[in-house]
C-alpha cells in the first residue's frame, strides 16, 4: 500500500492504482464480512450465546426430570429441536434485516453496489451461523448424555442413524433459510420475527378446524413437513410435501425479498 496523504506539503505523495487494475471484492470476503457484522456487536453475540444456552437448558430439563429411558443422545438432540425451530428462523431474520434496522445499507451498498452478491453473502453467512447454533445443540446433547451416564447411571446410547443426524441438520437449516427469506421479504425485524413465530400457531389452528384444511396442512405446514426428515424416514411423497411447503414459505418470500433488496432505494 502506498504512502499516506501528506497534509504538510502540497506535493503529490503517491499514485493510485488505475481503474482497470483494481479487482472486484471476492465473494468469500463478502461472506467473512457479513459473518463478522453479525457477531461484532454485543447484541449479535449474546443472541447466539443465548440460543446455544437454550439448547443446554432444554437438555438439562430432560436430564434432571426425564425418565431414564429417555436419557439417550438421540432423545436429547431431538428435544433441542423444539426451541431451535423457533430460534433458528430468528437467526436468519436478524442476518437479513440488520442492515435495514440500522441504516448501514448506506455504507454496505456503496462499498459493494452489486446487491445480489451482498444478498447471497448474507444468505451464506446466515446459514453458517445457523449451523453453528445447530452444532451447539449437538454439543449440548452430548454433554447431557455424558452427565446422564455419570449422575443418573444410565448406559450411554449414542446410536443415531446417519439419516437422522443428516435429517436433523437439514431440517434445522431449512428453518434458518425460512428466517432469511422472511427477513428479506419484510425487512422489518420485529415484523418478520412475529410472522415467523405466528406461522406455526396459525397452522395448528387452521388444521384443527376441518379435515380438509388439515390435509392441506400436510402440504403447506413447514413444521410438519420437516418432521419425517428428523426421524430419518422420508418417502417420495414426503419429499414432495417438503418441496411444496418450502416453495411457499421459503421460495416465494425469498424471491420477494430479493426483488426488494435489489431495487429498493437505500436512504
Amino acid at each position, binding site marked *: 500500500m*502506498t504512502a499516506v*496523504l501528506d497534509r504538510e506539503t502540497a506535493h503529490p505523495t503517491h499514485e493510485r492504482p488505475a481503474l482497470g487494475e*483494481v479487482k472486484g471484492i471476492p465473494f468469500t470476503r463478502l461472506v467473512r464480512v457479513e459473518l463478522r457484522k453479525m457477531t461484532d456487536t454485543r447484541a449479535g453475540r449474546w443472541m447466539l450465546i443465548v440460543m446455544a444456552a437454550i439448547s443446554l437448558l432444554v437438555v438439562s430439563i430432560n436430564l434432571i426430570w426425564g425418565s431414564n429411558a429417555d436419557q439417550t443422545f438421540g432423545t436429547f438432540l431431538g428435544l433441542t429441536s423444539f426451541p431451535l425451530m423457533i430460534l433458528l428462523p430468528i437467526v436468519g431474520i436478524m442476518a437479513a434485516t440488520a442492515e435495514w434496522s440500522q*441504516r448501514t445499507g448506506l455504507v454496505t451498498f*456503496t462499498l459493494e453496489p452489486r446487491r445480489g452478491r451482498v444478498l447471497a453473502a448474507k444468505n451464506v453467512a446466515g446459514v453458517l451461523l445457523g449451523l453453528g447454533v445447530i452444532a451447539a445443540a449437538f454439543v449440548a446433547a452430548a454433554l447431557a448424555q455424558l452427565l446422564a451416564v455419570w449422575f443418573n447411571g444410565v448406559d450411554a446410547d449414542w446410536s443415531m442413524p446417519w439419516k437422522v443426524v443428516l435429517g436433523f441438520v437439514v431440517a434445522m437449516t431449512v428453518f434458518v433459510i425460512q428466517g432469511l427469506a422472511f427477513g428479506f421479504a419484510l425487512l422489518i425485524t420485529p415484523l418478520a420475527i412475529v410472522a415467523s413465530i405466528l406461522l406455526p400457531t396459525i397452522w395448528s389452528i387452521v388444521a384443527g378446524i376441518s379435515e380438509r384444511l388439515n390435509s392441506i396442512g400436510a402440504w403447506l405446514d413447514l413444521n410438519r413437513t420437516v418432521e419425517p426428515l428428523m426421524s430419518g424416514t422420508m418417502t417420495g411423497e414426503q419429499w414432495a410435501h417438503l418441496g411444496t411447503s418450502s416453495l411457499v414459505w421459503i421460495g416465494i418470500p425469498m424471491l420477494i425479498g430479493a426483488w426488494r433488496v435489489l431495487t429498493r*432505494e437505500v436512504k
Partner: protein
Amino acid sequence: MITVENLTKRYGQFTAVDDISFEVQPGSVVGFLGPNGAGKSTAMRMMTGLTPPTSGRSTILGRDYHALPNPARHVGVMLDAAAQHPGRTGKEVLHLVGMTIGAPKSRVDQAMDMVGLTPAEAKRRVRNYSLGMRQRLGLAGALMGDPQVLILDEPANGLDPQGIHWMRQLLRAYADQGGTVLLSSHLLHEVQIIADELVMIGRGRIVAQGSKAELLGAGGTRVHSLDNDALANALQAKGFEVSGDRSGILVQASPEEVGRAALDAQIVLTELHTAGSEGLEQLFLSLTAADSREPQAA
C-alpha cells in the same frame, strides 16, 4: 472526475431532482448548495447507485457506479455519518470497511490518524460518540480506500469551528494533490472558502453554477470611506450602480475600479472588499426564496 447528465428523479407526481447536469474536474472542489429538501442528497444517492434515477445518468471516472469493481478504492462516499450500528466501536466500523475493500490492517490506524480520532476514542462504541466524532469517523470510512474522488453529503454538519477548519484544510490539500471533491452543504461561508466551483440547487433544479469568482464577482464591492456621500457621487458619475445601507456602500464594480474612483476623488478608504460572503448568501436566498420554508414577509 464526476459527470452528471440530465439526472432526474421523480416519485410519482413529485420531482425531487429535475434534469441536473454538471461536472467535477480532478483537482477541484465543487460545493453543492441548496436549501433543505432541494434534492442534494437524492442526487448524491443517484450518483452512488443507491437510488435508481428516473432518467439521465452519472459517471464517476468515466464509469457508472455499478460498473466500478470495488468502488471504495476509487470513490470515497460519506452520505450520512449517523448511519452506523451504535453497538460497534469506531475501530470496528473502519475495520469492516477495510476488510470489505481489501485494505491492509494498518490502513485503519492511518485513516483514524488522518481524521484526528485518538486510539482511545476508536475503542468507544458509536453510541458514545459526539456528533463531531461521528462525522470524523464517516470521513475516515470514505478515506479508507485511498480514493481519487470524494463524495460527501454535509461533511461539516455538527463540527465545531476547529473541526470545520480542519476539514477545510484536509479537503483543500486533497484537491491540491489532484483529488476530486464533491461536497454538499448549507454552510455558505465554509463552502465558499473551500470550494472552487459552486452548484446551487433549488427544488430539484440547478439555479446557478459556475466558478466561485464568477458567482461572487456578481456581488459587487463593499466600500467604506471617510466621506461616503462624496464617494457615492463619484462612483455614480462614473456610471457604477451604487446602493447604500447601514454597513456602507455596495457598488456594482470591481474593487480596483472603486479604488481608482476613490483615488481620483481624493477620498480616504477605510474598507474595501468584494461583497463575497454576503453576496453568496444573498444569491442563495434570492434564488431559492421560492422554495424556502420561511413565511413570506408581507
